[in-house]
């Protein structure tokens, strides 16, 4: 049941990227469907972060072309959640000003910003005192603030780089649920890098397995259990099978 019906929403063609003569990507092609969650999984240092950084326009590419919704990158609306919320939230602004910042730089009036943020909080049943500063929240709450900031301005794609890596287990489960909720509410196209296969499969419609460098796509694995997925999902036979399959491929790839 490979969903070839969905047209290519994110389109990467002939992508080349090297760092100091070390080739990372060479003639790399990739298409990703609209409205799905894609998990990116692969060996350490294979270029997962670099890939989503290029797809979000954060770092330049050497050659090739990347489009989102048939538009060049600089005209697309991108939401990005960084690996480390500590280094990317603005500690000099209140949590509210952090979340509303993308609206502010777009020139939205203060009153509308408040409305939009309140609406967002209501949608995801979040009760946080947003007058406080980011450092006054727990790690999980800060990551939640970072996610709200990334989705507040109604992006076309949401990228997340290892959003759970700085969180403890409990918070990981919580944020994972919130991300699922975000996706179910908005059907937002989401690309999430994870080094934890369980998180990767749990969130995904499609798992993108990458090789060692020079990096290519080893396989796109579909995972189509309906949402909402619950903690019981991880013992569902389909989940276990998919995770096992991804692990097999990963092991094979590492042996080469």
């Amino acid at each position, binding site marked *: 049941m490979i969903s070839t019906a969905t047209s290519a929403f994110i389109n990467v063609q002939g992508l080349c990227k090297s760092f100091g003569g070390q080739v990372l990507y060479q003639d790399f092609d990739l298409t990703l469907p609209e409205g799905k969650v894609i998990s990116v999984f692969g060996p350490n240092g294979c270029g997962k972060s670099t890939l989503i950084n290029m797809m*979000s*326009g*954060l770092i330049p590419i050497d050659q090739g072309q990347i489009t989102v919704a048939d538009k060049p990158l600089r005209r697309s*609306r*991108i939401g*990005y959640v*960084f690996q*480390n919320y500590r*280094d*990317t*939230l*603005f*500690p*000099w*602004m209140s949590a509210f000003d952090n979340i509303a*910042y*993308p609206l502010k*730089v*777009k020139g939205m009036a203060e009153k509308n910003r408040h409305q939009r943020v309140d609406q967002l909080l209501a949608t995801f049943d979040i009760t946080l005192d947003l007058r406080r*500063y980011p*450092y006054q929240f727990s790690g999980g709450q800060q990551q939640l603030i970072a996610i709200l*900031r990334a989705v507040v*301005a109604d992006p076309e794609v949401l990228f997340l780089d290892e959003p759970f890596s700085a969180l403890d287990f409990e918070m990981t489960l919580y944020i994972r649920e919130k991300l699922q909720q975000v996706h179910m509410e908005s059907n937002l196209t989401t690309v999430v890098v994870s080094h934890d296969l369980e998180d990767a499969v749990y969130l995904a419609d499609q798992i993108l397995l990458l090789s060692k460098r020079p990096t290519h796509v080893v396989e796109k694995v579909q995972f189509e259990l309906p949402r909402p997925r619950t903690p019981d999902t991880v013992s569902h036979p389909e989940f276990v099978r998919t995770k096992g399959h991804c692990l097999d491929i990963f092991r094979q790839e590492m042996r080469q």
Partner: protein
Amino acid sequence: MNQKKRQPSPSQNPLAIASKWVPWADKLLPLLGVVILLSFWEIAATSNWVNPVLLPTPVATIAELVIVTFRPENGLFLDFFTTLWRTLLSFAIGAILGVPLGIILGSNERVYRSFEFLIDFFRSTPASALIPMFLLFLGTSDWNKVVIPAFAGFLVIIFNSAYGVMNARQSRILAARVMGASHWDIFKDVLFWESLPQIFIGLRTGISISLVIVIVAEMFIGTDLGLGKRIFETQQILNVKDMYASILTTGVLGYCLNMIFRFVEKQIVHWSGR
């Protein structure tokens, strides 16, 4: 075999003992050094180790301090406020010029490279060495006692501001860029704040240096009022009690400026270290 259960008792931890015995005494610890110094001073002054003419007792010095401070004629408070005024004025000049110029310098790698050596050189040159040169141009006018300290403060402030901007971490700037912030947005909402802790280091150093140079300038360059001038003159006429009182006052001034600055800094750069 001794099978007694080992329980961590408070007495095994030296820190625990201290906090159990004297929980209130910890608060007084900062005073301990002061008490020791004053005792040494008292002993030195009363035991003839030091010529009593050169070293009055602490009590006599503080008594003198109280007396001369509010004396209507040649009162210490006039010198105090003159020095304070010069320090604040020169610091303000240094900061008003140094912070914006430093930020401009730091925002542009090429501009910074062109001035880096110059700033580093003058920053490493003791500002007191420049006093005679300034004297040539400005004479012994009262301006000198402000311009020289302002220059000295300006150098550390511009250096630290430029450094703060140049070494701002990139992660938050990238975050702002991906959210669609313009160059100006990034500058005023991110880069400026990101470099603020370093700017404050420059400002704090700048005000200390300004005070030092004000005092030195007051000693070197003729003036009617000022703590530097008072310390120098009382020493010349061997009015040692007044000299020590003036030195103490200078110390108190420097200390208070530092404390006030730290307080303000903590209010503004509230996120620092968190």
